[in-house]
């Protein structure tokens, strides 16, 4: 607010009458420059002096030069304060021009005594301490210099003061110059100094108002030709209705008035009235409109009508973004932030803590500088260590407008940490508090919150250096890990494992046979490759004595391990006695041959003897003892096949070489392969397995095992021999 000179002749009492109206206008419209302008009658330039000064306008519009500063030898008049005011100079009603009125205060300056830097610039005039000794009046020549965009002008005023009016320590008086004309919207620079100059010149800048003010609009003619607009709000959009005549050529300029400059949104040369629609979403508070006639150096009208529009502010916050930048320097990651917005914002950036599992971010009571958001500039956040739970919030008008947390791929996911604030009290007294949902809980505490429960432990961790320091300014931030205080449920995995093992055990117990069979099947399959599958084998032998029977039984069970379906009369005595040996053997032989099985003839001395008897070979010795009939029955079955020569492929002959040499076997039986056990066991087994199955290794393994298996029975047979009873 500019001061008014005390005594003043007003041609118009507008100010006094409209003072309360101005306040209302201010509240309602918020226009700049709410004071109304004084109206002066048009007259040539005049200067008036007050309070003991007398002056005369010596020269108007002369060429002035700024001379050098001269030292003061005698007391001189110097200007102390320069004030300017904008007035309207009217030739007639509604035909006014803007004018700048200058008020200059003067005082008497004594020469300085014992001044160390004589000849340098002297600051504000030191007033005399003693009374004024002179009798003569003091004179001075004051120059007022004006400069605006287009013109340059100087005025020389002669000022005289009578010695009786001088009072020490006060301004002698002031002069008022009416006035400097300047165009609307211009910026005027005014200097004032004496000639000769004794001190640095006073200067002042005066910005003349635009045509927007109603007084100018109504009174200044140059404003009439200027195009202007009216705003009409229609629902969602804002319409700019041009107040121009049909042929008027003008430029319309919409821009964002940002701190760094202007950002053009619309710049067009238009003719005649147009309706410009501004979308609601494009409204921002700093959207300003300038219009001027399409001539060179035209006066421009600019106005920012949306500065208090709530929709515009909402749009501004919708369009504002907080960008976090992580830069890695010498292995350390630093955080910088920038708020991108179209208009300057009055907001502040606050750090906040987001605990894991919560959506709310609690602002930290850290003393960050207020109003520290500078739009569109990168600012550095001096954090000692970056933590994923520390987020940034932009607060404006008492609530958070924007919140941004560090991205997961840079700092990782949210950690289950506890934030401790350390504030330094008065006498090196550090007090701690833990940030929780309900606020900052002071530690140690007896409350029932998680932080209070772990309070002592957390403080101990902090002392021992297990917490990470995040911030160190007037308060310190520490982040303590709660990992080791959380009850991790590893035991549930152990429980599941035990339960599974118990279930498997119970399952095995309940279904033992099935399991066993399956296990055996697995064992057989894996180890022996499953040499034969249920091939039928009929074992025929002559039961000479009990140990031989045992031997054959052992052989039969060994062959049974090979998955051969072994039939031997030892195991089917019941059937044998029921059917009779002949019938049984016939049936077995038929079954074996039908199923593609094999008939194994085990030869022993008794068998050979019987064969010889039957075949009536000459020179065969008589059998020493009557042989059992079972072999006779079996021989009666197999002999026809041998005699007719169709025995090959189905029959195999074997003998235990230690009991009977293979040569003793009658020639008739040599038409089929003859194997002497246990030396030719593998060949014997291979013959049993059948053609086309090349399980060499498994057959060999079987042969070895069979040899080992038969060994004890064979030895027993050899030892006991015929002494063992049948």
């Amino acid at each position, binding site marked *: 607010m500019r001061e008014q000179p005390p005594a003043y002749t007003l041609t118009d009492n507008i100010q006094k009458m409209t003072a309360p109206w101005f306040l209302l206008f201010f509240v309602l419209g918020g226009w700049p420059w709410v004071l109304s302008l004084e109206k002066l009658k048009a007259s040539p330039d005049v200067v008036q002096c007050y309070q003991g000064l007398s002056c005369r306008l010596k020269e108007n519009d002369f060429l002035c030069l700024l001379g050098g500063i001269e030292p003061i030898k005698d007391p001189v008049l110097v200007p102390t304060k320069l004030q300017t005011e904008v007035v309207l100079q009217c030739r007639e009603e509604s035909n006014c021009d803007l004018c700048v009125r200058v008020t200059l205060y003067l005082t008497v300056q004594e020469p300085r005594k014992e001044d160390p830097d004589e000849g340098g610039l002297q600051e504000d005039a030191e007033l005399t301490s003693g009374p004024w000794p002179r009798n003569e009046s003091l004179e001075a020549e004051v120059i007022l210099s004006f400069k605006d965009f287009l013109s340059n002008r100087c005025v020389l005023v002669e000022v005289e003061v009578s010695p009786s009016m001088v009072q020490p320590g006060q301004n002698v008086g002031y002069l008022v110059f009416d006035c400097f004309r300047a165009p609307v919207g211009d910026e005027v620079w005014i200097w004032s100094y004496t000639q000769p100059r004794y001190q640095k010149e006073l200067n002042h800048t005066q910005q003349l108002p635009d045509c927007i003010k109603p007084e100018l609009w109504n009174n200044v003619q140059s404003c009439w030709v200027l195009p202007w607009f009216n705003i009409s709000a229609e629902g969602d959009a804002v319409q700019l209705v041009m107040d121009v005549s049909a042929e008027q050529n003008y430029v319309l300029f919409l821009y964002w008035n940002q701190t760094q400059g202007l950002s053009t949104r619309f710049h067009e040369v238009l003719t005649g009235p147009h309706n410009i629609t501004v979308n609601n979403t494009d409204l921002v508070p700093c959207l300003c409109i300038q219009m001027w006639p399409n001539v060179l150096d035209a006066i421009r009208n600019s106005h920012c009508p949306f500065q208090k529009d709530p929709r515009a502010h909402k749009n501004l916050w919708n369009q504002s973004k907080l960008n976090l930048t992580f830069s890695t320097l010498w292995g350390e990651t630093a955080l910088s932030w920038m708020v991108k917005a179209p208009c300057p914002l009055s907001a502040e950036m606050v750090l906040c803590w987001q605990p894991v599992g919560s959506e709310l971010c609690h602002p930290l009571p850290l003393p960050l500088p207020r109003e520290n958001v500078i739009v569109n500039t990168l600012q550095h956040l001096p954090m000692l260590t970056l933590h994923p739970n520390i987020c940034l919030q932009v607060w404006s008008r008492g609530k958070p407008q924007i919140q941004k947390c560090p991205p997961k791929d840079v700092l990782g996911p949210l950690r289950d940490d506890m934030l401790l604030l350390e504030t330094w009290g008065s006498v090196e007294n550090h007090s701690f508090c833990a940030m929780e949902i309900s606020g900052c809980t002071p530690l140690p505490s007896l409350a029932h919150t*998680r932080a209070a*429960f*772990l309070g002592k*432990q957390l403080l101990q961790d902090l002392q021992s250096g297990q917490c990470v320091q995040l911030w160190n300014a007037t308060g310190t931030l520490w982040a303590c890990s709660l990992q*080791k*205080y*959380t*009850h*991790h*449920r*590893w*035991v549930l995995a*152990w*429980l599941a494992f*035990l*339960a599974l093992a*118990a279930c498997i*055990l*119970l399952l095995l*117990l*309940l*279904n*033992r046979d099935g399991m*066993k069979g399956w296990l*055996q099947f697995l064992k057989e399959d894996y180890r022996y490759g499953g040499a034969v599958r249920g091939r039928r084998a009929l074992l025929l032998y002559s039961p000479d004595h*009990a140990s031989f*029977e*045992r031997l054959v*039984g*052992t052989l*039969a*069970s*060994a062959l*049974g*391990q090979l998955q*051969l*379906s*072994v039939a031997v009369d*030892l*195991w*089917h*005595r*019941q059937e*044998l*006695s029921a059917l*009779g*040996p002949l019938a049984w053997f016939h049936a077995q032989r038929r079954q074996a041959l039908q199923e593609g099985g094999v008939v194994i003839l085990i030869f022993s001395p008794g068998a050979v003897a019987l064969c010889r008897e039957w075949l009536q070979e000459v020179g065969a010795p008589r059998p020493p003892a009557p042989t059992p*009939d079972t072999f006779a029955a079996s021989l009666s079955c197999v002999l026809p096949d041998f005699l007719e020569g169709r025995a090959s492929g189905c029959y195999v002959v074997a003998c235990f070489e230690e009991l009977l040499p293979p040569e003793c076997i009658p020639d008739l039986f040599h038409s089929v392969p003859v194997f002497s056990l246990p030396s030719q066991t593998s060949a014997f087994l291979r013959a049993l397995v059948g053609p086309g199955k090349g399980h060499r290794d498994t057959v060999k393994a079987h042969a070895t*095992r069979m040899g080992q*298996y038969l060994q*004890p029975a064979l030895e027993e047979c050899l030892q006991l021999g015929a002494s063992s009873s*049948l």
Partner: protein
Amino acid sequence: MRSGEELDGFEGEASSTSMISGASSPYQPTTEPVSQRRGLGGLRCHTDYLRRAPGRLKLAQVVLALIAFICIETIMECSPCEGLYFFEFVSCSAFVITGVLLLMFSLNLHTRIPQINWNITDLVNTGLSTFFFFIASIVLAALNHKAGAEIAAVVFGFLATAVYAANTFLAVQKWRMNIRQQSTNEYIRARTESREVDSRPEIQRLDT
């Protein structure tokens, strides 16, 4: 009568020799009890086991271990947590293993695995459980934060220790009795075997 598939084992087992000797006389009587396939895979709940002291003690142990485990699981925060984890582990393992043993003894499933000495197994289980429950309860009592759940867990831990101790005592008694019985049994078996050697079954002549 046996077929080749019924033989178990390639090695010379007692069954095959008996089979061979049995081959000489196919009508040798067998003294094996035939398993009755009744119920679910031959299961029958032997409630008499549960009526006697060991069964009841086992049931009590299972219940107490489960309650102690549940009590300790309700705790969210711990400082330090090691005592808690140990107690958890002990109660969980005791619960499962004792539960399995209880199940096996009450359903008589332990007879299906004659290779394992079940008395020794039971003794070892109860002895170890007693010891570990005792240690875990003491450790938890020393480290607790006066939280309700922790105190409850300690109490149930000590109760379980007492029950396991009682069971150990009974099992030790049973084991001692078994040892005395075994020594007398072996004498009797030796005498029976020597008698059996003399009478060997004759081979029946089928065509006479």
